[in-house]
């Protein structure tokens, strides 16, 4: 639990904005995409940890800057689209842009250092991401993508649990304040 202040947001003055060493965000985001693309070759179980989504959420809630959060989400999402062969560019981009924005906005208002809050936040944002993705696919691509299934519920729970571990590892990359 950290007791901090937010220099950028006057209304939530007790929330700390975390800084990272130069290039950390870029490298971690790149690694997340690379690992996700690599793990995808080894079966469907890679979907249980959507690393690009988790990285988007993590840096969104840590930096607490909606602009950088949504930009990071947009870049990661577009990169994911670009690496897939059947998705038009923008599909994941839109979903992760929204997630990045929401994550950074939420991170600026509540404490996201506790594992339980991280678990809940990732669980919710996973479904936000899926909701936006399904909506976009249904409206723009005319694909019958479901908003919610039991499988998605399980995946979201596993992703949330994975996020708790991953976020604690990524916390080590923070620059001391």
């Amino acid at each position, binding site marked *: 639990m950290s007791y901090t202040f937010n220099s950028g947001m006057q209304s939530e003055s007790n929330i700390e904005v975390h800084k990272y060493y130069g290039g950390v965000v870029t490298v971690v985001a790149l690694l997340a995409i690379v690992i996700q693309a690599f793990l995808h070759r080894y079966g469907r179980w890679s979907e249980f940890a959507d690393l690009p989504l988790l990285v988007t959420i993590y840096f969104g809630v840590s930096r607490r800057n909606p602009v950088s959060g949504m*930009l990071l989400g947009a870049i990661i999402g577009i990169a994911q689209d*670009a690496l897939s062969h059947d998705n038009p560019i*923008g599909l994941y981009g839109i979903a992760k842009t929204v997630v990045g924005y929401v994550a950074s906005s939420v991170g600026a208002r509540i404490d996201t250092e506790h594992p339980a809050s991280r678990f809940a936040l990732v669980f919710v944002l996973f479904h936000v991401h899926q909701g936006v993705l399904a909506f976009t696919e249904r409206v*723009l691509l005319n694909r019958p993508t479901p908003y919610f299934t039991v499988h998605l519920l399980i995946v979201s729970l596993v992703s949330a649990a994975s996020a708790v571990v991953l976020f604690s590892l990524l916390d080590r990359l923070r620059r001391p304040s």
Partner: protein
Amino acid sequence: MPEILTRHRPLALLAALLIAQILLLAFQIKRHSDVRLIRYWASEIITPGEKAASWAFSGIGGIWHGYIDLRGAHSENVRLRQEVGQLELRNQELENTAAQAKRLSLLLDFREAHREARMVAAQVIGGSADLSSHTVFINKGERSGIRRDQAVITPDGIVGKVVEVSPDTAQVLLINDRNSGVGALFADTRTQGVLKGTGDPQPVLAYVTNDEKVHLGEVLLTSGEDRIFPKGLLIGIVTSFKPGYPFQTINVQTAARLDRLEDVLVLLSQEELHPKANSSAGNVVVGLPAEPKVEVPKTPQVAAAAPAPSPSPAPMNPGGNKSASPSAGRP
């Protein structure tokens, strides 16, 4: 309006980003075209990382499978070695069985070819403890009708004679033992002599005078004069000879492999064996078409004074020649 945008800058940027991406999507859907440039750059940026990840993953996998994950390797190795040992043993057993079946088949063929002759098949079960004597024990004895001084043969040639008999075993004196003597004659010239053991693997033919012409590879048969072996059984071939005083020294290679005896036949009488026509049951009896298994050495030990070998002495083929009848051409 600008004030609103400034005040809600993040929201405005969000809207702009979403609209831009929606337009991009709409463009791709409408035109059925792709934004290849973005995909190209994404691929260029990501694929080196993927290659590195793949390399690292395979390296780690190799280390894991090659060094760390070897918990069961030792026990598996032990199990496989045991399995290989068992299979080798089994293979050896099968080979032995096949060899034995072949030998017994030869014996049976021989027995079938000489139904009129009374004989008993026996297995060699042991040898002599004395290195200087050439004797073996067989697993048949008095109970099987075996008596002293009966001839012991194989389908390849003669082996020896029975010297001691117990109810269930018998001792056989091999023809290369120094106490052995067998009446012999040359298949072609019918010159007679006595095959004597020397204690060495090869016996010698004694009592052949120097004026008798001997050829390398000449076939030697039993003469029947010893009243043990029936006349006409194959003994072996001449491998070397030299003049001596008063008789020649003639070394003979036995047709039967005396050092590898396993199954033998004991002739219960001294009746001559009359093989059936076209029989292939071994070559122990003159007149059988089968090729003998003995070979003439390429560099025979012939004394300088010895007569030159005959032009074609090599394959010993007692069959189909004038000695088809054991008594024919006898001197």
